[in-house]
């Protein structure tokens, strides 16, 4: 089948490109865009995919991950669509990629300068749990009125004794916009701060693009007496690789009923295991 390079027509790409440049110029602000129809359903990574398709070119090497895995159905399908329409190289190694599309994780390997990480976003509006109207949340962002976001965290502390948001933990970008970092675990939030690469976030169903440029201040919302804390994996060891201190998946051995852990970022785990003198 004959298709335009990178699937989207040039006018669609131009519109996404113009909006992306605005997003980079206004860190954390959700720029509305005319989300296009794609061969995958909205809500399955179309925002990220449109960003990737508008960015990708002949000299790129693409990596696509879904919750840390290069091999899940979603990641493979998206990677295939990108490759079928562009013939670009693919890789599983984070440092070899120029363009990384990811769902719900920032890779363990830190981003390099000029690398671009595209995150798929289901719900871009951090104020949505407290305010259903888009028109009103837009005004709240305009007025920098974030009491709702703070109150939500406060209520969690009152109810449960601690902040219970595990993923999609809200952040303040460049001291101005409260932003939903997409459902990455809290563990990944600090990686956004002063990072070397560019992070672009795309929400296809909600029709929003936003960005965190390199070397930008990104702070997770927290209170003085209830500081922001990441999940700790220091005393947990990956059963496959012996790694520790990285983000882990908790699994249950069906035969013994025992709980065990495996590193979530599979390509990182593989790289570590292939190193000479690795733990396993």
């Amino acid at each position, binding site marked *: 089948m004959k298709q335009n390079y990178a699937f989207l027509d040039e006018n669609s790409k131009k519109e996404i490109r113009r909006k992306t440049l605005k997003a980079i110029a206004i860190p954390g602000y959700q*720029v509305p865009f005319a989300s296009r129809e794609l061969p995958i359903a909205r809500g399955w990574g179309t925002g990220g995919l449109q960003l990737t398709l508008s960015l990708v070119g002949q000299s790129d090497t693409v990596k696509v991950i879904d919750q840390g895995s290069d091999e899940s159905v979603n990641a493979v399908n998206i990677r295939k669509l990108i490759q079928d329409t562009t013939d670009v190289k693919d890789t599983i190694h984070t440092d070899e990629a120029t363009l990384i599309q990811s769902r719900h994780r920032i890779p363990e390997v830190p981003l390099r300068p000029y690398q671009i990480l595209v995150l798929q976003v289901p719900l871009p509006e951090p104020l949505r749990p407290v305010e259903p109207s888009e028109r009103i949340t837009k005004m709240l962002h305009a007025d920098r009125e974030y009491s709702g976001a703070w109150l939500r965290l406060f209520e969690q502390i009152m109810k449960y004794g601690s902040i219970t948001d595990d993923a999609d933990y809200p952040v303040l970008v460049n001291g101005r916009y409260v932003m939903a970092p997409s459902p990455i675990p809290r563990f990944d939030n600090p990686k956004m701060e002063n990072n070397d690469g560019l992070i672009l976030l795309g929400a296809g169903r909600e029709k929003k693009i936003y960005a965190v440029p*390199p070397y930008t201040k990104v702070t997770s919302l927290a209170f003085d007496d209830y500081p922001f804390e990441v999940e700790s994996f220091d005393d947990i060891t990956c059963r496959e690789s012996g790694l520790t201190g990285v983000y882990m998946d908790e699994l249950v051995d069906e035969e013994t009923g025992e709980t065990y852990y495996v590193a979530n970022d599979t390509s990182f785990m593989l790289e570590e295991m292939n190193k000479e003198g690795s733990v396993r």
Partner: protein
Amino acid sequence: MTTMVHNTQKHYRELVDLFSRPGEVRISTFDTPNFTSFSDATLATVLTLFDNEISFHTPEQKDYIEFQTLTGGRYSEDLSEVDYAVIKEHDLTGELMMTIKAGTLASPEKSATLIIEVDSIGEGQKYSLKGPGIKTVNEIEMTFDPKWMELRTELCSEFPLGIDLILIDRHNQLAVIPRTTITEVI
């Protein structure tokens, strides 16, 4: 094989890098027949970003007819509504700077982008740049009058309102100063 599709993609990626790293300089290698009074890099930027959804302003008739024909973008005399202004530094006026859109607090993206052609990037007035995308401090030298930079700073004083500048010189070098960047004459 490279076509216009690949050329604009490549140019866009340069712009992405430049927008996310204010003050960095790139040389554009975009090669296309150019019948405008602007440099090839300026034309490349126009071809990459313009289509029939945007409006633009440029002073000379021959240029706007060419831009319109090539991209379908809509030429407008009304500076207060244009999305892009393509202009040489010596044609800049205080009136233009103060009339163009700086966005609204609810929709700061509804602001104009200025594509300014200067004589040289690499020599001239020295500026220090700070802000998102810059690790500590970046320095850039260019023949861009500090009085325009001052007006730009004024327009960008109430973030997120402001304008973004794409600066291009006659030798196809590009640099970007988005609204978040704090500039200082040194």
